[in-house]
């Protein structure tokens, strides 16, 4: 048994770390209702006027729309490709299996700026493609594959193959086994992977910066572009608060449909 003193000390530490984690987020929400335009604390007064200003911001809606389109497209690509490679690795033995595994994981291990510059160099100086929505989607899908892959292959490994074997022994074709046995058992992990991939894409800024070009703005790019404009500060505060509160949605979704919410982001 570890002593009660250690218990009390680590409990106090836990409380402090939780304050450290949540105080800044609370501040963001509070500041969205601050009638003053500066960061001066305590807030000068309560107002809802910035919320209506943000609601009427065209730039915000356009970039939000772009973010949703990019997120959905990248997630769709990642779902298909990530699931395929997870099946290959979990259900087959082949030469280079470990290498394929490493290749899939590499895009999130390397810093975003390396991925961003690499894609930028390829698109602009090697292929001569104009940067736009399509190039952003390619960039995002590349690092979303690993997210879907992680979720799906962990599930496949836990499932084992006995039910699939039983289905095959009873005469089902490969497709029937996949459609009626494997897929229903994997639904949770696919949903969790999709939520995660979308969230990652929705929040991504570095790879986006290097693949979007000047014409396309996603929501993070738009926020970053307005972050240092004192005039826009109240609107940014509102968008920041809304995004912070919206963080509860995927947690709830993952809990509702994906099963285990703990650490699914990693």
């Amino acid at each position: 048994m570890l002593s009660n003193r250690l218990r009390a000390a680590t409990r106090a530490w836990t409380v402090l770390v939780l304050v450290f984690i949540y105080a800044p987020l609370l501040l963001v929400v509070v500041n969205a209702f601050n009638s003053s335009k500066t960061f001066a604390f305590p807030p000068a007064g309560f107002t809802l006027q910035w919320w209506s200003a943000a609601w009427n911001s065209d730039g915000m809606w356009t970039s939000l729309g772009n973010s949703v389109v990019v997120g959905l497209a990248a997630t769709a690509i990642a779902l298909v490709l990530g699931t395929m490679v997870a099946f290959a690795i979990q259900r087959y033995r082949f030469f280079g299996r470990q290498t394929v595994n490493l290749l899939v994981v590499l895009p999130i291990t390397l810093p975003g700026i390396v991925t961003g510059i690499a894609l930028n160099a390829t698109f602009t100086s090697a292929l001569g493609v104009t940067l736009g929505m399509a190039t952003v989607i390619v960039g995002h899908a590349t690092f979303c594959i690993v997210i879907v892959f992680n979720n799906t292959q962990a599930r496949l490994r836990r499932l084992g193959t006995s039910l699939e074997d039983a289905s095959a022994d009873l005469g089902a074709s490969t497709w029937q086994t996949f459609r009626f046995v494997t897929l229903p058992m994997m639904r949770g992990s696919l949903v969790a992977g999709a939520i995660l991939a979308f969230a990652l894409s929705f929040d991504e800024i570095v790879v986006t910066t290097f693949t979007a070009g000047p014409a396309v703005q996603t929501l993070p790019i738009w926020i970053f572009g307005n972050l240092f404009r004192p005039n826009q500060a109240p609107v940014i505060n509102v968008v920041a608060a809304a995004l912070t509160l919206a963080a509860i949605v995927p947690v709830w979704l993952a809990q509702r449909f994906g099963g285990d919410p703990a650490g699914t982001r990693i």
Partner: protein
Amino acid sequence: MPSAPTQPPAPRMREKAALAFLLVPPLAWLIIAYLGSLAVLMVSAFWTTNSFTGAVVHKFTTANLVRVLTDDVFRAVTIRTVGVAAAVTILCAVLAVPLALFMAKFASPALRIVLVVAVTTPLWASYLVKAYAWRMLLSPEGPLSWATGYTPGYGLVATVLTLTYLWLPYMVIPVFAAFQRVPDALVDASSDLGASDLNTLRLIVAPMIFPGIAAGSIFTFSLSLGDYIAVTIVGGKTQMLGNVIYGQLVTANNQPMAAALSLIPLLAIVLYLLAMRRAGALENV
């Protein structure tokens, strides 16, 4: 690392076809879009630009690499960036270890779930918003200076604090998982045999959670190394590698130089991964 649950039979023709069907599309994507791009990045580090038009000239030169290795400014920025990444990693570990210990060994099962959710939920909040929150918090008239009369202001300290805040959950989760794998019986046996808490933690628990810390450190180190957004928001005039690379690409319009510079974080991460693999961290990722 995945391991197949059973020993699948030797591939027959049909299986080979199925495997090819499953592997070719994702591999084609990753090899063309990703490895291809990394190859272009490495090759383009040896290109140069036309000094008048700024257009990339496909002519082999080692000038960029030589400059990356010899330029004093680049060296100072590299050292600063690696230092920041190391400081962030250490701070994350210091914050995470007692927290993870409490979560895994002291908290009731119900409280444990609440704590796991509480620690991971901020990962879903926007990265930019969290960095921006620290800009508010540390501002000269902000809450911290109002409450304590002190703020480090925008600079290196603020950068380390903000990055620590951003990546902390990535450290907590693997360390927590490592603590959960420490059997209670082992801890009890150690204290029954008369070891103090400190000795139990140092001699029994520490070696077992080290791979967890190493696994977390891959995230905190790698994510800090490439970051330039948080530095821009809270770092004041502080420059990290990311800022310099961005500056070369966008402001100086020198894509080959940016490519040459981005080989530094690439190399640093590969070296770090190799070191961590020796430490046994990759089995838990």
